[in-house]
């Protein structure tokens, strides 16, 4: 649907890499884009209200599912997925970014633009696999988990911020990237880092719905 746009600006993306600019150069421009959109084109709201609302959701789920944390994780993931499939539209409309040519570029867009525009954070991209198809996002100041402390039983089973995985999964799927997204570790569980692993399974074929085109 956004074919023409993606090819036009895709060329501009290629030309910038063709002119010999290192990856960092691309990253900087993405960072500038993200910062600019956040600063000038985004309506904002108190992050604490956001944190508190998410906290209310999770604690209510804990009650509704009788502290069955596997089910709660699934439910949070599902909620995130539902958000993600619609959020990507919002994201593309705001940023007008071109199609990403590879996962490296995708990771940069996720970290420097997507997280920036919606949550005002930029997770670090690390732990690339050898074939450059899997990477990790390390989140330092997760606004979802501010002022959160898990009870000991939840520390074992609950991925508190699992909604993020769902959002990433849903959003990536809508741009034809079938990925596995899951938490590896979470500071709330006593780990050193909060890390989300994203692994590309395959690139989905761009199927045009019957009756269009």
């Amino acid at each position, binding site marked *: 649907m956004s074919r023409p746009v993606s090819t036009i600006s895709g060329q501009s993306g290629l030309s910038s890499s063709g002119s010999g600019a290192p990856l960092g150069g691309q990253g900087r421009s993405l960072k500038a884009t993200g910062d600019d959109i*956040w600063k000038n084109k*985004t*309506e*904002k*709201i*108190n*992050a*604490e*209200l*956001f944190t*508190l*609302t*998410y906290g*209310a*959701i999770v*604690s*209510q789920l804990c*009650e*509704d599912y009788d*502290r069955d944390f596997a089910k709660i994780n699934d*439910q949070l993931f599902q*909620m*995130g997925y*539902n*958000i993600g499939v*619609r*959020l990507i539209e*919002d994201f593309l409309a705001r940023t007008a970014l071109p199609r990403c040519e590879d996962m490296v570029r995708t990771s940069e867009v996720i970290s420097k633009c997507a997280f920036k*525009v*919606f*949550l*005002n954070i930029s997770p670090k991209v690390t732990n690339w696999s050898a074939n450059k198809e899997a990477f990790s996002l390390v989140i330092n100041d997760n*606004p979802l988990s*501010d*002022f959160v*402390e898990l*009870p*000991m*039983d*939840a*520390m*074992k089973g609950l991925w508190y911020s699992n*909604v993020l995985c769902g959002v990433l999964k849903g959003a990536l799927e809508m741009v034809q990237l079938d990925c596995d997204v899951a938490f590896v570790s979470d500071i709330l569980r*006593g780990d050193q880092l909060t890390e989300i692993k994203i692994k590309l399974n395959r690139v989905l074929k761009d199927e045009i719905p019957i009756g269009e085109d």
Partner: protein
Amino acid sequence: MSQQIIQPSTADPSVRDRSTGYEYTVGPKPSLPDEHMRSPLTSRLYAASLAAGKQQVSLAAMTFLFQEMIAYLHKNCTSVTEFEGRLSAYGESIGTKLLELLNLRSSVAPGSSSRTSTFLSSSSQTSTAAGSTTAGSATARSRSGTVTSSRSGVSASTHTGTAPSTGPASAASHSNGSATADSHSHHTHAHIHQTESLTSQITRMRRRDLKILDILQFVHGTLWSYLFDHVSDDLVKSSERNNEYMIIDNHPPLTQFISGANNRVSCDYFVCGIIRGFLTDAGFRCKVTAHTMPQGTFDNRTVYLIQFDNQVLERENIRFGQASS
């Protein structure tokens, strides 16, 4: 739930092991056999500062989350009343927390730090708009205060005690003759990462609001500014019933993307819940309902109707009888 709080006195391990990891008389407790071996997790919560940060997220992120919350309730509720009640319950859990938090933050003596007004972003805007030299020196003072406290461990005295002139001097003496630009970057760095204790800025706690009007003013002003970055558009007393008050928002931010007046008003019960939790915990038992009342160009104008319990009015009459009515 109550059955689970009271632990049955039985030897059957299947019952006993159904632990929630939290003993209500003791606090967190290990629920796994090997947990004793692990070093106890030091709580970061007590180290976190309650000082108002300027953290923000996009309204889009918030409304997406809000929408999922509503969708979840939609699936699980059978009637509108149940839906509104449960949505309100979400809000109440937030309102109770905000009562304590905002009281604490309002207690910060004005002028003790540049941060005092950050949660009232409207007033922070006016202070920058004024752009006077006093505002500038205030920030400079608090910045140098942060730096000294991060380096030498002095916290409270530097904030209140130092005169503006000695502030930069003490900062310079600490910077070991490094370049000014470097020390300045240090300032901002410290300003972001140094968690500053809120209590060090409070000399006297704000008094609890005892009168209906006072607490409503607090909701109308402080709570609304905190939640939505502006005071509510009106606070009105009902002319027909003397236990009814109305808080009016011309453009409720959270529900602005929801279509259909009836649907929207049901979703406004989240904010009703926040108000109710806030007031109830402050000792003003009440019922809060939302009503849509378009006026002029404000199609989404919402009235939050607060109906106080009779006991609240009686108490007010006894305590402040001559003054109020």
